[in-house]
């Protein structure tokens, strides 16, 4: 062999041997790496507000699906229109993979607050599933903003009043009841009883 090519040849041989013994990159898994998962977690657009969801339901948008991740009893007691029930502990069963791992429908997880929905989201995100979202602050928030919207104060901006009117209309849609505008709404709260100490509100 020509002496000029010995060194490059040796280098390439070493590289070749090294490529053979290099650990394989597993391309079959679409799982996210920690950095990718963290970046996805920091995307604030993955939280959808109750106003957006209310709008989607009323307009009968075909491109989304509400997924209730609470237990079956809670689902059958009350659930959002058009939602399906995937209890959190069944999330990874094969029968639901078709709903979670696809690219056409946007799934919106919801629960009483955010914790279960968020957990569902994180598990799906790490597995590489796309198009999943979380209902911001859950059903507690749904009832506080859509079903029983808070009346804006006298000094509130026009935008706030418009939002209130929209929410009021949505409330009528969902409850099928007529409500007069600008009537103070009584809120019923269920406090969690803590033994011997103050009561606490439910939260995330």
């Amino acid at each position, binding site marked *: 062999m020509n002496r000029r090519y010995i060194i490059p040849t040796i280098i390439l041989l070493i590289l070749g041997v090294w490529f053979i013994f290099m650990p394989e990159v597993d391309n079959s898994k679409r799982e996210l790496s920690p950095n990718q998962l963290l970046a996805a977690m920091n995307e604030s657009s993955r939280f959808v507000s109750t106003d957006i969801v209310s709008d989607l339901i009323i307009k009968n948008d*075909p491109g989304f699906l509400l997924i209730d991740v609470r237990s079956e009893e809670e689902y059958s007691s009350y659930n959002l229109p058009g939602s399906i029930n995937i209890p959190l502990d069944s999330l990874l069963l094969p029968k639901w993979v078709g709903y979670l791992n696809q690219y056409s429908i946007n799934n919106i997880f919801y629960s009483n607050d955010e*914790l279960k929905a*968020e957990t569902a989201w994180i598990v799906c995100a790490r597995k590489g599933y796309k198009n999943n979202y979380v209902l911001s602050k859950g059903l507690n928030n749904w009832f506080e903003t859509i*079903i029983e919207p808070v009346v804006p104060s006298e000094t509130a901006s026009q935008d706030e009043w418009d939002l209130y009117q929209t929410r009021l209309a949505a409330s009528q849609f969902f409850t*099928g009841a007529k409500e007069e505008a600008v009537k103070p709404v009584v809120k019923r709260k269920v406090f969690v009883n803590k033994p011997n100490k103050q009561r606490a509100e439910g939260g995330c």
Partner: protein
Amino acid sequence: MLNFKIMKYKLARYSSILFVIVLILAFTLKREEVFVVDTEVVFNEVLSGSNIANEEILGQVVDNNNSSLLIIDVRTPGEYIKGHIENAINIPVKNMLDPDYVKIYKHWAKPIIVYGVYTCDAQRAYMMIRQLGVDSISVIAGGYKYFTEFGDWVFPVESAKYEFAEIMKEKSGGKLVQPKAPVRRVIKKAVKQKERAEGGC
């Protein structure tokens, strides 16, 4: 002709050496973190509730008598400065994977406690850190606010604030117990239609 051939040889030599140097650098420089624990394992832990700090652990945090605990505050620096649990260090969620922070928690052999504004943000940190391979880590349910008020009482996560069904029933004047809407099974629709059509001509 001769000059040109010499040039070619030098070029090949230098570029090969450069190539090897680049490769060596690429693989000796710090690698990204990888997940060591499967999602399913961590998920089952969350389902069983073992990710939530129990009374005993909360008691230790309150008494502040266990110096081997690592307490991580995942809120923003601004909130941390306003007030935090004694001896807690501040690692905002979005900086969770900064190498300096990873060094702190990744090889901590004793229990780690995480808390945030709510349970949710601490839960995110929990999922990340746990999947990186840290074994003993738990979340303070309810976040900073409830911990400072109620100490070692385990906050009940995911509690419904209102009686949803009752409210809907009242508002609709007793008419609807469940909101009426067809449950859409969008994925399986195609299969069902095909089955029905089989009976035709």
